[in-house]
């Protein structure tokens, strides 16, 4: 009861609190379904109770705020249910539909005592945001921009947006490192650290994307990597602003954010998306294989084919030589045969010819011989006649027959006119000489 002091009715705090408590209990007799944003969960590990901060926003501005309270046992039930439906625990920054009593406790003040939360509402809210983001990006015609960028033939320079401590990053790096050891595939990667969930992700991921843009010439693409996690942790990847940023990013963006059920919008607008970081790393390695295998095969193909080409040419050449050799050998032997035949013919013919010639010659010789004999005989007779004539003409023989030669001064005398009386004449007779002197001369009368 209030006490009176100097005419004033004075209440204790408890009395006022109890008054409020009774009023509120009267006004709000039952539990109500309320929808709000779970700004902060306010879980206290020691007690196991939660002291959430519930807000309602309009155009990003808080227009209502109330503190909540979830007792340990309620929290455990709610969380179990949440995990079952969403694959995730209750978290900050999600929209919830909860069953709560409006309670006022003198020691704690006004609290919404939450006894149940409907995980289906939260899920639906995510799905709603997801659908709205997809629709909006499609309407703006930017949904496929990143997808239409030319993907590098060899994605080797990777700007990684992740967190060094996240399991996804470790998984990714393990595969990349194994590839370096196994195939000597050398990726260049650089970590740009960002938060990977919730409001912080929505702030830091775009921030890092902006930084990467400054050094974009050093990178082939951007990989957003995070480990697994429940459905709730993916909420930010359906955010319109982030999705738009990635859809319109000038470098190809790939994601490996380990989602369980539906693809997030970020996955959908990214150039490539893998279910897990491990799968994403394997995707990169496959790209290297796709490049490496033909390069290695090219060596073999070129070696084999050029070897085959050379041996083809060589064997063609050899067979040409063989053909040439056999053709020339044939030709030679044919010519040789012809030659031999000709020689034979010539030999045979010439022998015959020679024989004929000899025969002919012999005939000629004998003809000549017999001709000669006749000629000789004729000549001999002729000669004998001549000889006889000559003999007959010999002065001696003439002188024998009574003729003589008269010489005057050693010369034969034929003209009487040359003589004068007293000339000494020598007369040669057959068997001697007579010397005489001229008395007279007379000239023989012309007849």
């Amino acid at each position, binding site marked *: 009861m209030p006490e009176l002091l100097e005419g004033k009715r004075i209440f204790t705090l408890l009395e006022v609190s109890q008054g409020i408590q009774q009023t509120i209990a009267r006004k709000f007799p039952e539990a109500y379904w309320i929808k709000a944003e779970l700004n902060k969960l306010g879980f206290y590990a020691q007690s196991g109770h939660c002291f959430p901060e519930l807000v309602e926003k309009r155009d990003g501005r808080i227009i209502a705020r109330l503190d909540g309270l979830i007792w340990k046992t309620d929290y455990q039930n709610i969380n179990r249910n949440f995990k079952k439906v969403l694959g995730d625990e209750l978290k900050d920054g999600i929209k919830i539909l909860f069953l709560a009593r409006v309670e006022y406790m003198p020691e704690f003040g006004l609290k919404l005592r939450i006894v149940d939360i409907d995980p289906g509402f939260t899920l639906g809210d995510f799905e709603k945001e997801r659908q709205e983001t997809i629709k909006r990006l499609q309407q703006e015609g930017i949904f496929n921009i990143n997808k239409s960028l030319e993907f590098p033939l060899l994605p080797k320079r990777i700007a990684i947006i992740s967190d060094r401590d996240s399991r996804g990053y470790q998984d990714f790096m393990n595969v990349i490192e194994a590839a370096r050891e196994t195939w000597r595939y050398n990726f260049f990667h*650089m970590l740009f650290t960002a938060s990977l969930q919730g409001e912080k992700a929505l702030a830091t991921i775009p921030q890092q994307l902006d930084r990467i843009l400054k050094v974009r010439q050093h990178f082939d693409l951007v990989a957003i990597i995070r480990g697994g996690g429940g459905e709730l942790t993916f909420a930010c990847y359906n955010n319109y602003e982030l999705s738009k940023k990635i859809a319109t990013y000038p470098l190809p963006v790939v994601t490996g954010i380990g989602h369980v059920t539906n693809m997030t919008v970020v996955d959908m607008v990214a150039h490539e998306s893998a279910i897990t970081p491990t799968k994403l790393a394997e995707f990169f390695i496959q790209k290297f294989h796709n490049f490496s295998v033909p390069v290695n095969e090219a060596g073999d193909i070129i070696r084999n084919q050029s070897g085959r080409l050379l041996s083809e040419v060589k064997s063609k050449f050899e067979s040409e030589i063989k053909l040439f050799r056999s053709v020339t050998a044939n030709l030679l032997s044919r010519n040789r045969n012809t030659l031999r035949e000709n020689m034979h013919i010539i030999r045979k013919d010439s022998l015959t010819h020679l024989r004929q010639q000899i025969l002919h010659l012999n005939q000629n010789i004998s003809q000549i011989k017999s001709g000669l004999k006749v000629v000789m005989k004729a000549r001999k007779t002729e000669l004998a006649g001549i000889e006889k004539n000559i003999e007959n003409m010999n002065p001696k023989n003439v002188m024998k027959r009574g003729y003589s030669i008269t010489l005057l001064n050693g010369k034969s005398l034929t003209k009487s006119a040359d003589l004068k009386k007293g000339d000494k004449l020598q007369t040669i007779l057959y068997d001697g000489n007579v010397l005489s002197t001229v008395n007279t001369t007379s000239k023989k009368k012309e007849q």
Partner: protein
Amino acid sequence: MKGEPNYTDAFEELQTIVTEIEQGEISVDELSEKVKRASYLIRICKTKLHSTEEDVNKILKDLDSSNIPQSGLDV
């Protein structure tokens, strides 16, 4: 071709030579030249697979020259 081709061009040119040689479109006269070129291209491609020229320090320097606050992040 002038200078060293980038790996995409090298890869494509290599594929062309492989196709040509596979289809027997290369004469013995060209063979030596093509094989020489192919092995050069293979070397470029393999280098790209197995090495990297990027310099982290250079990237960091480029990043530092930016006006965007680093905000205590790893890089």
